[in-house]
């Protein structure tokens, strides 16, 4: 018999990405994101008169806040409700591998959707001289931010069998996290606490990327966040028997 490692199954990732790309939800999502981001970009592009995507990237944490939970909400909640997780988890595949595959699929789809902003980059290229370094680090920051949002959404989806509950709890926690990175909140807190809270905010780290700074501490923070929630999802899935 062939030796197999049931750790990672590209087949599962492929199926889920394909599902995103062919399901109404996925397509509506992509179109909406494209429309909203293009509109946000052009709304004051000619007023500001700068070859930069900064206005758009500044709004991305807020956009993602409502868009990405819609991508993750059904990853596990739906399977629990319909009972298909019983099929999936009795196939020769490990929980770990199921979770990582689902996370990757959601991330790949999100990356493709973010890629829809590429025409804007080309527009910038024709109309002016964008700062490529800043653009690149902004995109990188956007991807890390998205991955972190998705990891949290994935985890919360594994805790319920209700899509809407998964969606709303994810939005709720992301909103709290979002506001804890805002000046409005931070300026009212004592120095040290404000520092700690801001460090735990995903959007706080994201700002550096949009300014063209890639900080090691931010990268480590994002990666730890992603690993933590992917791991928690695995734990949550494994503890189904209790």
């Amino acid at each position, binding site marked *: 018999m062939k030796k197999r490692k049931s750790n990672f199954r590209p087949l599962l990732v492929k199926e889920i990405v394909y599902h995103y790309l062919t399901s109404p939800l996925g397509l509506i999502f992509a179109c909406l994101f494209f429309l909203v981001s293009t509109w946000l970009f052009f709304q004051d592009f000619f007023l500001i008169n700068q070859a930069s995507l900064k206005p758009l990237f500044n709004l991305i944490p807020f956009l993602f806040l409502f868009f990405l939970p819609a991508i993750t909400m059904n990853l596990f909640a739906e399977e629990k409700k319909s009972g298909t997780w019983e*099929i999936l988890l*009795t196939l020769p595949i490990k929980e770990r591998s199921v979770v990582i595959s689902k996370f990757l699929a959601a991330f790949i789809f999100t990356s493709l959707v973010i890629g829809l902003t590429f025409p804007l980059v080309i527009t910038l290229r024709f109309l002016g001289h964008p700062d490529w370094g800043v653009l690149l680090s902004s995109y990188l920051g956007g991807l890390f931010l998205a991955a972190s949002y998705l990891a949290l959404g994935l985890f919360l989806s594994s805790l319920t069998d209700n899509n809407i509950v998964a969606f709303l709890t994810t939005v709720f926690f992301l909103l709290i996290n979002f506001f804890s990175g805002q000046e409005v909140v931070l300026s009212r807190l004592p120095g040290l606490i404000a520092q700690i809270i801001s460090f735990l905010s995903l959007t706080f780290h994201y700002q550096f990327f949009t300014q063209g700074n890639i900080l090691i501490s931010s990268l480590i923070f994002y990666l730890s966040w992603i690993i933590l929630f992917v791991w928690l999802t695995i734990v949550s899935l494994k503890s189904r028997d209790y």
Partner: protein
Amino acid sequence: MNDISFSAKTGEIIGFLGPNGAGKTTTMRLITGFLIPTKGKITINGLPPKKARDLIGYLPEENPLYSRFTALEYLTFIAKMHYLSGAQLRQRLNYVIENCGLQEMAYQTIETLSRGYRQRVGLAAALIHNPQLLIMDEPTTGLDPNQQKEIRKLIQQIAQKKTIIFSTHILSEAEAICQRVIIIHQGQLVAQEDLAQLRRKRVSLEKLFSRLTQ
């Protein structure tokens, strides 16, 4: 679940009986490795369920399916997840589609299939990797009498080289196709009877069932 112990041989069809909430589904989930027992041991050909997934085919209660797929896509997906490929994949696909009577429905989306056909798709998926042990949780519930008959016929057809464990509410069904029945009540095994012996002793399954579970 408490204190349940039994074994099954190749070629045997075992019926799992018990009132609702007796623990039939939990027992089956334990055998398939979906749940892990807190105490005790389950082995399939000497392997724990998690390592024996290729040996087990499972049709869960309510027959959950990824209904966005067509029947053929779904079966192919499950087969590939079982590491089937190439000629072997095609051969198994043909086999289950033919034996479960899905020829005409292969290209239909599962969503649009009738309950009886959905059940066949579920059964075909459970059989696709040619498992030695087939576990079915109430495979005939919700089907009309004709569909029930067909599923029963199917079960008997595939039984020769496999071990089959299935749960049911219908006592006559168990009597018709099982060699042995296991009765579970309140999480305990209350009876394990050979049906041929039961018949020889002229004890009716129905009386035995109601005596033990009331």
